[in-house]
């Protein structure tokens, strides 16, 4: 039973990463602790497998590595944006370009962005991706 628990540390470590992001907004660019927990689990799993070489333990080893490598690939490579041109620079004035855009409120009322900007000295636009 114990190697199974050790194996479960791997997905658990990654699950905690997602819970921290989605529940508490803790964004880690390099989730090193989560990698470390997974590697420690893989180390002990390998040790257990050397003592008692069963097919079940080898499968757990393989699965653990697949999960860990997937998580590392996703965090370090896949989730990274490919370089985008950043067409607007600081100090540019965009008032003419935002004057006629199809923007609306949740109730479908049209929004004229230059008018919205007038309401406060500065406005922070936050682009976000839906749920995540």
């Amino acid at each position, binding site marked *: 039973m114990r190697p199974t628990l050790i194996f479960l540390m791997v997905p658990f470590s990654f699950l905690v990463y997602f819970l921290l992001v989605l529940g508490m907004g803790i964004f*880690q660019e390099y989730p090193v602790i989560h990698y470390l927990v997974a590697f420690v689990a893989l180390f002990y799993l390998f040790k257990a497998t050397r003592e008692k070489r069963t097919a079940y333990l080898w499968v757990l080893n393989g699965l653990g590595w697949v999960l860990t490598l997937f998580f590392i690939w996703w965090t370090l490579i896949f989730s990274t944006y490919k370089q985008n041109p950043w067409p*607007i620079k600081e100090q540019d004035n965009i008032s003419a370009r935002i004057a006629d855009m199809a*923007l609306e409120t949740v109730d479908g009322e049209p929004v004229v962005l230059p008018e919205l900007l007038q309401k406060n000295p*500065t*406005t*922070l636009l936050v*682009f976000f991706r*839906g749920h995540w």
Partner: protein
Amino acid sequence: MVELVKLQKNKPAFDELGTSIVAVTVEDNDGMRKTMKRVGSGVAFIRDTEGQLMDLFGLRDQAPNPSGKSVPRSANILLRQDGQVLWVHNSPNYRVRLGPDDVLDAIKQRLTPSK
């Protein structure tokens, strides 16, 4: 979206700087309502119906989300009343966002006249 919840919790600090927070979404009506409910009233929401605003800033993510829809990269843009861009920041990947303290620091820096 949780980054908006954190910004909303710091709304008094933004008010002090004279900065309003406007979230830009491409979500459908249901999604937008749900997000607005979770975030709370301190953040105004506008829907970028055709993605024109995200395209202006070059923020359309080349990889669409799992439902096949174009979504913007996470980004913060500070604008002055006259439409001048004071600060632009986008995330290096879709996992990380700036926290409210970093955003507030960046705004303060832009609003302090340099001597």
